[in-house]
């Protein structure tokens, strides 16, 4: 009986249904914790570009308090919702998917890191590109002057361990801190990782960092990725700069008024 065709087919059918049902249950039951885990991971990565995340830190709380996210297009205009009316959430944008679209159709998330007073302290942008073997990506944090690098975090899919995979090492990423992406005359130069490794950071100017020995192709990928994404975001940076300038001018006027007011108060107090 156990060898009859009917039994074999019946057995296979029952097994398929049981196992399929089990897996479907697991997928549905675990969906929520999985989404939470992905979200937490993204937030940790983004935050780690500007600050040290210790084990046990409440990443979600820091995120809610310190990060203000928005989405811009290639012209630097803020995108609130898609054509079909759904709201755009910066965190949920898959930079890898956007990378496949033509640049003018892409959405570019920006994460503003606020200081404790609620002013923008740093701008974090995602970057994405191709390494030697597979895709590489990361987050770049710029100081509020939008010129100086505050920190970078890179990750990769398949770079060679010990060579290209070193872009995930803190030591390699720290080489970018304090480097500048715009020249003195405001021209975008980005940052180049050079070929060969000198081990001495002092010999490089503000636009170059020490290379990774044996991983020039990966370094080229990183250079390419950085330059491209700084270009994509350059319109947005410009809008920020003009807004900042206006704000500073306004701020000066306000300060003058405030000063005269305090003088008045002082005078009154003296009297």
């Amino acid at each position: 009986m156990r060898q009859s065709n009917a039994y074999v087919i019946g057995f296979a059918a029952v097994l398929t249904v049981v196992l399929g049902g089990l897996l479907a249950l697991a997928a549905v039951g675990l969906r929520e914790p999985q989404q939470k885990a992905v979200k937490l991971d993204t937030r940790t990565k983004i935050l780690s570009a500007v600050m040290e995340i210790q084990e046990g830190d409440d990443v979600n709380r820091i995120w809610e308090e310190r990060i203000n996210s928005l989405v811009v297009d290639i012209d630097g205009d803020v995108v609130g919702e898609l054509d079909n009316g759904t709201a755009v959430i910066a965190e949920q944008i898959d930079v890898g998917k956007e990378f496949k679209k033509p640049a003018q159709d892409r959405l570019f998330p920006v994460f503003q890191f606020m200081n404790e007073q609620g002013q923008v302290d740093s701008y974090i942008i995602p970057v994405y590109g191709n390494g030697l073997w597979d895709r590489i990506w990361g987050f770049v944090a710029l100081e509020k002057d939008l010129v100086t690098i505050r920190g970078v975090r890179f990750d990769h899919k398949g770079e060679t361990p010990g060579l290209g995979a070193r872009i995930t090492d803190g030591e390699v990423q720290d080489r970018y801190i304090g480097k500048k992406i715009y020249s003195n005359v405001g021209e975008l130069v980005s940052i180049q990782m050079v070929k060969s490794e000198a081990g001495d950071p002092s010999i490089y100017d503000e636009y170059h960092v020490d290379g990774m020995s044996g991983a020039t192709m990966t370094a080229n990928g990183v250079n390419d990725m950085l330059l491209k994404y700084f270009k994509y975001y350059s319109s947005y940076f410009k809008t920020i700069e003009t807004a900042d300038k206006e704000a500073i001018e306004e701020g000066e006027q306000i300060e003058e008024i405030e000063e005269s007011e305090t003088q008045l108060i002082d005078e009154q107090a003296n009297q």
Partner: protein
Amino acid sequence: MSAQVSETQDIQVAKKPAEELFSKRRRKLISDPLNDDNPITVQVLGICSALAVTSQMYPTTIMAMAVVVVVVMSNLTISAMRNIIPNRIRIIVQLAIVASLVILVDQVLKAYAYDVSRELSVFVGLIITNCIVMGRLEAFAMGNKPYDSILDGLGSGFGYAWIILAVAFFRELFGAGAIYGFEVFNAIGLENFPNNGLMVTPVGAFLILGLIIWVQRSKTGYVEK
């Protein structure tokens, strides 16, 4: 006369008690794969993942746990079903069950240990093709009772686990100067101890595995026939 016979039979039945929970035979089920019949070093199975995931202790530990869970659970399931599985499709039935278990493990890891699951990436999925799992199902679980099969699964699982953990120990120690991320050489004052790049690559795992096999076989006297 006949009453006597049935009496002695009764006595015989009563005299044959259930096998001890950890009888000598059952202890051997667990202890054999740890050394004399180790799945990696003697049977040379599961090498692929032993090379790929062992660059650091932490992911290796998770991988070892995943394999133990899958071997034990699939051994148990197949052993419980062994009398109703049609012989002609037994391999595909085993495969379906192993695959389902592996996907379950993968899903759980994605939910509760996301960073490790990303690091292990495809190698969790590749437990399906780990010869240790299928090998134990076909060689043991198809012909033995569930409890024995669990013990056999534990033995093989831990046999795999301790080898990959040993490999990972040396690879992380010499490749990154750390154990579970704790920087050993810095802690004992050897700050300039150079990291060995070879250990970071799978080649390092090959070498260490070879050394372990060498030491083990020189002790046990095992020779390939």
